[in-house]
């Protein structure tokens, strides 16, 4: 069974392990390079980061050494990553197997009833052990103290395993594997918020280097990892808390599994309406019902990000002064001396790229609907063109809405932070001018959907990657030649604020290109066979 799990995930798991584990030395090397000069810088940065509640959300300050800074900046991120990898692994090999009927096939052979669950947990243990070991090596070989490195590696591994064990309980309860995935991911999110809240509400020491966390940190695996205090007087017995939690979850999951029928969770699927509400009828109603979830999810995420970026606007001056390389990137891109404006211009650009990811995955629903229920719609007297345009309109309107809200929120928060609410207007402009560039890529996806439907997904992801990687702020880090960068429409979007950067030409050109691409796609779709 374990081998079956390993074989099915022979690509996914190594990629996950490698990307997490290689990130450790890269991060360490990066941090070391920036602060190679003198120790005072590290302390200064920790004090700066501890003073700002927005940044405390992502870590618990524990002191002024390199290891402390590393924990502060990266531990929560690693914990969330291993948490998600571990939970999805467990769900994939338990409930999802059952739903796809694989479990019946295997279960009818001579394996124990709990074989699936045990195999998934054993693999999760192995994966986290490897990640812990690699993280430890990555830290220790970079000249960090051995005890702290070991504690950090172990706490990352134990956090992952704790989430795996918790996921094992959730899969017994949830209504479906999708539900289990959502619940387990939610658990990781809640743990993140609780540990963050603990740091935000905690008490800052006089030196400004340490924060005594509030009680919520004590109530979740990510917090326990922080409370092991790697590099800051390791508290090894915290490992027992982890082990106790993991043991309780595993035993509980086994107990629940013995009471449950294959394929059905302990929570029954709720009944819904027996009649369609008026709001569902019609193509527009159907589209809003189908895509509402994705819209709300992405909107909340992007707006939260916008708020966070807005909140640090006031302290950006100090931050960028302490890391000169970053300041140059911002100033070069926008051509303004006002570093706060330059920073906010960069933020709009980044929010534009995030929104692009939303728009592309949503416009791909054209293709997934074609494979699912489109034949029902079309044979129910729905016009093809009307259906495609309804879906695309939803993408366009919701994209604009997300950018509008995100820019307004970023402007409000930043305005309060720097005491100048007038900043909202340039931010709004900066957000909305991203729309034509996004729609060029959306239009490209529609074109592929109409002309080469089978390539829709692969070309869409390619276009998205090009859009992201060659966007101004990623490409400047990668040091790519200008002609490569110019492939991305985002390379031509003016950076606003400052307002004086605005140009009409790219906006007009992009709007025209987007319209033409979309129109060709829709016309081709009207003339082609339905898959």
């Amino acid at each position: 069974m374990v081998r079956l799990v390993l074989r099915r995930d022979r690509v996914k798991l190594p990629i996950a392990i490698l990307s997490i584990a290689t990130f450790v030395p890269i991060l360490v090397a990066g941090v070391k390079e920036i602060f190679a000069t003198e120790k005072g810088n590290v302390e200064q940065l920790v004090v700066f980061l501890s003073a700002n509640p927005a940044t405390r959300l992502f870590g618990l300050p524990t002191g002024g050494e390199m290891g402390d800074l590393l924990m502060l900046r990266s531990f929560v991120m690693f914990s969330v990553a291993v948490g998600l990898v571990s939970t999805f692994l467990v769900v994939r090999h338990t409930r999802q197997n059952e739903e796809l009927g694989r479990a019946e096939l295997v279960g009818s052979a001579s394996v124990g009833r709990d074989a699936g669950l045990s195999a998934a947990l054993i693999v999760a243990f192995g994966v986290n052990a490897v990640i812990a070991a690699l993280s430890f090596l990555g830290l220790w070989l970079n000249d960090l103290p051995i005890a702290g490195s070991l504690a950090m590696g172990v706490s990352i591994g134990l956090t992952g395993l704790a989430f795996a064990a918790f996921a094992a309980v959730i899969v017994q309860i949830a209504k479906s594997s999708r539900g289990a995935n959502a619940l387990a991911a939610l658990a990781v999110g809640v743990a993140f918020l609780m540990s963050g809240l603990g740091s935000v509400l905690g008490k800052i020491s006089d030196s400004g280097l340490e924060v005594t966390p509030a009680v919520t940190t004590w109530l979740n695996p990510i917090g326990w990892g922080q409370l092991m205090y790697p590099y800051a007087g390791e508290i090894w017995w915290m490992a027992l808390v982890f082990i106790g939690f993991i043991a309780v979850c595993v035993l509980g999951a086994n107990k629940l599994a013995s009471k449950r029928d294959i394929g059905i969770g302990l929570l029954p699927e709720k009944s819904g309406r027996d009649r369609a509400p008026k709001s569902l009828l019609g193509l527009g109603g159907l589209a809003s019902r189908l895509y509402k979830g994705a819209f709300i999810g992405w909107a909340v995420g992007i707006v939260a990000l916008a708020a966070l970026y807005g909140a640090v606007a006031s302290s950006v001056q100090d931050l960028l002064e302490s890391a000169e390389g970053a300041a140059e990137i911002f100033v070069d891109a926008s051509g303004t001396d006002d570093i706060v404006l330059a920073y906010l211009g960069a933020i709009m650009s980044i929010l534009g790229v995030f929104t692009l990811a939303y728009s592309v995955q949503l416009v791909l629903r054209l293709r997934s609907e074609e494979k699912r229920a489109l034949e029902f719609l079309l044979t129910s007297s729905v016009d093809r063109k009307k259906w495609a345009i309804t879906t695309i309109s939803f993408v366009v309107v919701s994209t604009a809405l997300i950018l509008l809200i995100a820019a307004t929120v970023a402007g409000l928060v930043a305005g309060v932070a720097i005491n100048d609410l007038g900043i909202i207007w340039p931010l709004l402009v900066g957000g909305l001018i991203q729309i034509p560039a996004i729609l060029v890529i959306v239009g490209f996806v529609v074109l592929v959907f109409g002309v080469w439907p089978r390539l829709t997904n692969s070309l869409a992801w390619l276009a998205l990657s090009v859009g992201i990687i060659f966007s101004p702020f990623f490409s400047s880090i990668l040091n790519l030649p200008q002609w490569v960068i110019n492939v991305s429409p985002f390379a031509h979007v003016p950076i606003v604020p400052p307002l004086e950067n605005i140009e009409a030409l790219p906006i007009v050109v992009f709007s025209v290109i987007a319209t033409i691409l979309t129109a060709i796609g829709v016309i081709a779709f009207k003339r082609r066979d339905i898959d």
Partner: protein
Amino acid sequence: MTKNKYAISIKDLVKTFGETTALDGLDLQASTGEVHGLLGPNGAGKSTTIRVLLGLLRADSGEVSVLSQDPWNDAVELHKNLVYVPGEVNLWENLTGGEIIDLLTDLRGTESGNDKRRQELLEKFKLDPTKKFSTYSKGNRQKVALVAALASDVDLYILDEPTSGLDPLLEIAFQDEIKKLKTQGKTILLSSHILAEVEALCDTVTIIRDGKVVESGSLDKLRHLTRTTVRVTTNKSLAGVKSLQGVHDFKLDGHTAGFEVQPDQLNSVIAELTKLEIESIICHPPTIEELFMGHYRGKTANKNE
């Protein structure tokens, strides 16, 4: 709409997908008011034919007319007067069955006055409309599509293996509904694998294989062209049966023999068998697979022996 003699008329239809030819000069006529069966093994082109009739696929060449309209160019108008149920029903996982039924009937523009009919069908097919689509079994998913289709009052019903997931009791309910539609003068195109279903419902049948029509006509007529399979055990020796007229593929194993009989010689062969003191006998009509296979048909039968 003017009442045409044929609800569906296909002449010399060709459809290719890249290198493969799915339909190779197919002809099909279904008269208004009849239940027309479309039979064929997997990959014969049944679903491709139906998808052309629905305007989902574009014909390479040939004439296709459905309810006197061109399914490719007049799709939207045409679909107000027909419904379609596929064999594999994939709909929106997070909508309930009831919501889906309402949505589909609403899109077609059917008057909402058929609430009573909807309720009657839900009860008849024992479908709980409050469950999310994702929780339905294959059979229940098909019921969602069937109820949505049957609740619509249209002229033509195109059903592509609509009962492959239904249990026998609901299969009867389905046949009952189809018979009702027939008495109302509706036209039904039914593609199926289940011979019993086709026998019970269809007036005429078109059998296709490799994208071509193998046989078309009334079911009785087709039956006539095929042999009956016999397996018999007797007290006296069966050796002489082999040489009787109309007996084919004779195989003897002690006192038991298996063979096939041409329909026109059935009576005389049975008469001979009774003289041999029958202990047990099993006769069955040609199975659907046997109907598919060309060499079972009368016109080639004599060449085989």
